Every structure is written in C-alpha cells, then in structure tokens.
C-alpha cells in the first residue's frame, strides 16, 4: 500500500480540472471532490516549496555558523529552524496521505470519446435471433449438464489460449491491496465479501488478480502487449444473502467467469480493444448464439473503466438480450494504482494501460440451452461443443439421462 502511486494523473488534474470534472460527472463524482483535490494538491505543493526554502536557508546559515562557530545565538536559531522544518514535513506527510486517500476513492474518468451526457447506448452489430420457446434456468447443474458446462469452459478458455493468451489459474481469496489495485477498493469496502479473520477478500472478478500480476514492476516494452486469460469462481454479495430460488437467473453471478486481461502501451489501446472484442465475437459465433455488441453509456461504466462494450446474447425464454461479456478499457488507471510500468531502453518508465474482458460461463450455458433447444426438448450442440462433449445432442430419447441441467 505504501508504494501505491496516485491513480488519477495529478498532472492532468492540474492542467485541465474542468475537463476531468466533466468526464467524472458521468460516474456520479461531484465537481467539489475534484476542487478539494486541487486545493489539497496546491496546499501540498505550497508546503513542499516552503520546506525547500527553509532548508536552503538553514543550509546557508549552517555554513555560516561552521565558518564562525563561536556565536551561541546562531546555534539556537538553527535548532529553531530544524524544528520548524520537521514540523512542516509532518504536516506535508498528512496532506499527502489525505490526497492519496481522496485519489484512491475516485473512479476512472470516462473516455474522451464518450459524451458524458450520453446515457444512450448504440448498437453496433447484430445477428438476428431465432426465437424459440424454452424453459427457464437452473441454479444447480447435474448429470450431463456438468459435463456440458465443463466443455463450454474448456472451449472458452482454449479459444483465448489458441490466440496467444497465456492462461493463469489464480487464488480466489485476495489481499486488500490487490482489490485496491484493480479499483474495487477502497470505494466499495463494505460491499465485497470477505473473510475478516484472515484479512482476505473473495474475488469479485477474475480480473482483480490478473490486474495485479505485475505489481510494482517495470516491464520491457517488447513484452507488451501481454495477454492473459483465466477462469474461476467470482463472488458477489448479491448472492450471499438471498436464497437460491430468488436468484435473477440472468445475472452473471453464479459459477465461473472467464476473464481476458491485456497489459499494453497506452497507444495500443484501440487495437487491443478490437482484438479482444474480436475473440469474443469468434467465441459466440462458434457457439452459434445470436448476439449484439453494445457500447455502454457513461452512466453504467464500472468504477475503474473509462469505456466499455457489452456482448449481449439473445435469451428466447426472456425475449431479451442479456449481457454475457463485458470488455473494459481502463487506460492507465489500474496501472497507476498497481504501479505497473514499462520502459523502452533508456527512456523514462511510463505507466502501462490495461484492457479487460469478462465472460460469464453460466450465461453461456443457459444461452446454449435456450437457443439450441429442439421441438422434442433435446438440445442440439454446436460443433465446437459437440466435439468436446462427445455427442451432438443432449437429452434426446435413448441417448443417456433425460435430466440435463435442471435441479
């Protein structure tokens, strides 16, 4: 925590606070908060300057005293100066701590390209759904449902792995500083689930761990972009306090999440966003699911994101598109919090940028069952899944257990 650097770029706040205010307004941050930060920053810099001035004065007088050490009056004055300096220094430390705390609590400003008043969402690509009647959803998987689910998870992760994403399986319990780095803390400290006795938080997202793989590191420029993919359970308080049958079954909370995460140079952002969006396109197409990609309005962005795209799949039973995948661009927001930088040769180290994408495995399974159900109640699997699962159809008469995924 001690080495945590500022999250918003202070330079940017000093240079153009008004534009920053506008970009943060969409995330519900009041302008006053920025004004306070500007004031604190000014105060901190004033203290620094004063300390510096006092120090040079003190040094000069110490020099004079050393040349004529017999003057006792000067000695008392020097001591007074030293006390004054240390007093000022401790004040400056307090101001700095306050400033850091304020900065940590501020979400990432939205991307310049997003108009801050646009709550509207624009639809970018759409494939037409084939609407079919289908039954609802199923909190506990069983029998063939479990193997089908594993097939989907394996297919999904391998889709990334085959495109040069490096796989990682990370712990589901994370230290506080890791969630601070990814942006989930401190703002929502009382929200996330934790094991207080062990001072560990339950991962609210698979991205949280991926965002901290290079805490306090300086990467070589040639290392970027560095692509990761991971799969595991994620924990959301909305599930913990509600009985199973009260789930909104179209929420992405139960079961596993697959997350892709890319460390990159800030100028690679556009290119990487379209790359990861493209991988998810390929994945959904391989599952033969009707979907659309939606650019998210500023009001619905996550805390650490400056822009986001949602992949929404059609769910016939609900007659609606439901987001199954989210692609977030974090700019250098997370890198500043985790102090992840890169350097090219002798140049000054710069903060990396990051792009993350999460896909909800539960919803992919649900979408598969709803969209590929046949008239006789069986489910015809897309080729990519049938190959792994070992059968092209699930739940048809005479082909194994009738119970597929319901319990």
């Amino acid at each position, binding site marked *: 925590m001690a080495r945590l650097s500022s999250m918003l770029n202070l330079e940017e706040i000093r240079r153009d606070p008004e534009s920053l205010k506008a970009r943060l307004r969409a995330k519900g941050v009041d302008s006053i908060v920025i004004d306070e930060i500007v004031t604190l920053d000014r105060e901190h810099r004033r203290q620094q300057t004063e300390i510096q001035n006092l120090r040079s004065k003190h040094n000069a007088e110490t020099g004079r005293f050393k040349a004529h050490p017999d003057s006792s009056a000067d000695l008392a004055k020097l001591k007074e100066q030293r006390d004054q300096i240390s007093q000022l220094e401790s004040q400056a430390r307090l101001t700095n701590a306050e400033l850091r705390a304020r900065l940590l609590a501020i979400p990432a400003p939205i991307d310049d390209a997003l108009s801050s008043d646009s709550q509207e969402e624009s639809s970018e690509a759409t494939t037409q759904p084939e609407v079919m009647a289908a039954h609802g959803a199923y909190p506990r998987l*069983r029998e063939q449902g479990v193997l089908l689910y594993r097939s989907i998870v394996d297919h999904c992760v391998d889709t990334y792995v085959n495109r040069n994403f490096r796989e990682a399986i990370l712990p589901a319990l994370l230290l506080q500083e890791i969630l601070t780095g990814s942006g989930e803390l401190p703002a929502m400290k009382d929200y996330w689930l934790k094991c207080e006795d062990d001072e560990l938080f339950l991962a609210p997202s698979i991205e949280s761990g991926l965002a901290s793989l290079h805490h306090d590191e300086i990467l070589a420029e040639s*290392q970027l972009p560095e692509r990761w993919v991971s*799969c595991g359970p994620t924990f959301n308080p909305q599930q913990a306090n509600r009985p199973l049958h009260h789930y909104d079954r179209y929420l992405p909370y139960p079961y596993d999440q697959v997350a892709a995460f890319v460390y990159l140079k800030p100028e690679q952002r556009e290119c990487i966003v379209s790359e990861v969006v493209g991988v998810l396109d390929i994945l959904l197409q391989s599952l033969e699911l009707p979907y659309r990609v939606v650019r998210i309005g500023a009001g619905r962005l996550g805390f650490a994101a400056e822009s986001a795209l949602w992949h929404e799949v059609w769910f016939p039973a609900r007659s609606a598109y439901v987001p199954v995948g989210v692609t977030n661009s974090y700019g250098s927001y997370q890198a500043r919090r985790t102090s992840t930088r890169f350097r090219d040769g002798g140049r000054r180290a710069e903060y990396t940028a990051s792009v993350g994408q999460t896909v909800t495995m539960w919803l992919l399974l649900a979408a598969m069952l709803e969209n590929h159900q046949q008239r006789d109640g069986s489910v015809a699997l897309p080729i990519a899944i049938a190959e792994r699962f070992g059968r092209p159809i699930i739940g048809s008469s005479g082909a194994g257990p009738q119970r597929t995924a319901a319990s």
Partner: protein
Amino acid sequence: MIAIERILANPSEIERRLRFRGDDTDIASLLQLRRELEDIEKGGDASRATILAKQLQAALERLPAVPHETTPLSTKKTDFKIVREYGGPRLEKVTPSHVDIGGRLGMLDLRKATRLSGNKFAAYIGWGARLERALITYMLRMAANAGYSLIAPPLPWAGSSQLFTAGVLPKFADQVYKITGSDLFLVPTAEVLLSSLHNGALFDEQTLPQKYAAYTPCFRREAGAARATEPGLIRIHQFNKVELVVFTTPQKSYDDLEILVTDAERVLRGLGLHYRVILLPSCDLAQQATKAYDLQVWLPSINDYYEVSTCSNCEDYQARRGGVRVRGTDGRVEYAHTLNGSGVATSRLFAAILENNLDAEGGVGVPEILRSYMGGVERIPPIIHHPGG
C-alpha cells in the same frame, strides 16, 4: 454422531475405541448426564431438562465416530497397513521438486500467488493451468463413467447446517473460511455439499447405493502451522478436487467402500502414477469416519508417498445429523450409511505428474489420457524464452 443407545450397550468398549483415535471424552460422565436427564424428565422440571438435553446433545455432537473392527487400533499414525501397491516404475532417484520443475517450465508461480493472497497459495500458469484444467475435466469424466451422478454447485460455499451434517462443525470451525456477515463458509471439500444432498430423505433399500461426484475448489485455513514446512503444493489453502460421495445401506456399506476405493484408484491408474493403498489406523481417521483407506502417490523429490485421496466409511455418523434413512424390504427403517472419497485432489497429483514424468531434457511428459484435453500435446517442453514471468 453416535447413537446414545450404542454407547449404553457397551460403554467401556466404545470408550476404549475412542481412546485409540485420540478422543478423551469421559463416557461415564456422559452417561451420568443421561441418567440425570432421565430423572429430571420423570420429575417434570421441563426447563432444567431442556438444559441437560442440550448439554448431552452437544457432548454427543463432539464425539468422533467409533472405529470399525477392521480398523487397526493404534495411537501411532505409522501403524497403517499397506493393502496394495500399483503402478509403473517407482522412481528411486532424487529428482528436482515440483516447485523447481514447475517454476522452470513456467507452469507454477508460488511467488506471484503469495503476492496476491499471502503464503501457501498457488498460481498455475501457462501449461500448468492447462494441465490443472485437464485434470479436473478428466476426473469428472472418470466419475461419470463409473456411474456417479455429477453435481455442480453454483459456488464453492455452503451454509453452517451443511458443514454440521458433514461433521466439520462444530469441532473444526477454525479450519474453515467463514464469510463475514453471513452464514456461509467456503467449502473445505465438496463432501459438505454432497453429504447433505438428501437431508431428511427416506430411501427404499433397492434404490441404494446412490453415488454422486462434484468438482469444487476447496479452501482450508490449515490453522496450526505444524506442517508449515511442506514444500510447494503439498499443503495449500486452496486446491481443486473432485469428491465422490455414496449413500448406501448399513448392510452394504463396507463392500461399497471397497468399490469406492477402486473408483478413485482408476484415476491414478489412468495417469500411470505409482501409488499404494493403505488402511489407516484409528488415530488417523477423520472425525466422521469409522474406516478409511488412503491413496498415496509416490513423490520422488520427497522420496515418500503422499496422500491424494482418503476414502472413508462414515456409517450413520452423517446420516444421523442429516436425518437420512433407509427402509428395508422388510419395512424396517434405519439410518443410511454414507461414504466419501476424493477422486482426487489435483494439487498433489500435479506435483506427482511433474516429478514422475520429468525427462532427461528437462521437459515433462503429458500422461496419454490427458492429451486430448490439452490440444494433443505430448510433452511440455523446457522454456527457451518466456516473457512476462
């Protein structure tokens, strides 16, 4: 939970057997409590009776299961009985440990895991993650093929009543991660989810055995640092496991235990690992078990066998807590028996594969049966250059 009637039938023998599993409960005072309760119930002091009944219940709940007559009675963990050994050649030469091999091949990063979560966590990277995932899918398929019904819970957590049924609570509350502000715990094993699957059920004898398997990540606090010196993946706070649970009748439970052991063994045989099956002595039994076998794989770097699965008969210990009963063909109703075993835990299996399959050039051979889950790769090659740690 032991039935009080069973204790009454032969208190000294029960106490003797419990001593051999390290339980020092004074059975005489427990029975004294029971007599007092009976007297007061006759006298009609209802509130006093409730208090005593609670005390008696609590004392009974803390008692471990009574070891079966075939379980070696001993207070020494080394008094196990080797039942059989199996497998390819047992590598006698000392190889580098799985930590070194995994680190060198970029498959395992314990340093990063520590950074994320503290000590004794693991991060599987690159081929390591793929191997781990392949093991999970492989083991689930093996369980399905052996006739187990697969179950996948939405999340690896369970409520306190489920942990109670399994026998984890109340005694081992300090070994599980409790989620603050809720009644939920991260599961130490999927057994806690499966063993309470039929709480309150009454089975007809002919419908048993019913066999279940589930994969979950498992979380253990491992409080008490006595084993803190074990290297790498041997004992970690979070690991992956496929758990097998069987509901059966009192008449068949010991036969079904033998079948359960062979089902778990099949996983190890498929991977070509050298292993042995041992019968545990009474002192090494889990709280709820009356008889248990350990499956142990050979780890060349430690030059010893390590447990990857414990297959236990819990008799009616869990069934009493969960109220699971069975009606015989003659109409008699009694508590069912439950069995459980890992099929198996991946972390030590991962270690065993790395250490046993290391080749002369520093690569690791992928067991044939896993290749189809890993894009057909036969061998994980040594890394020439791997950016990004």
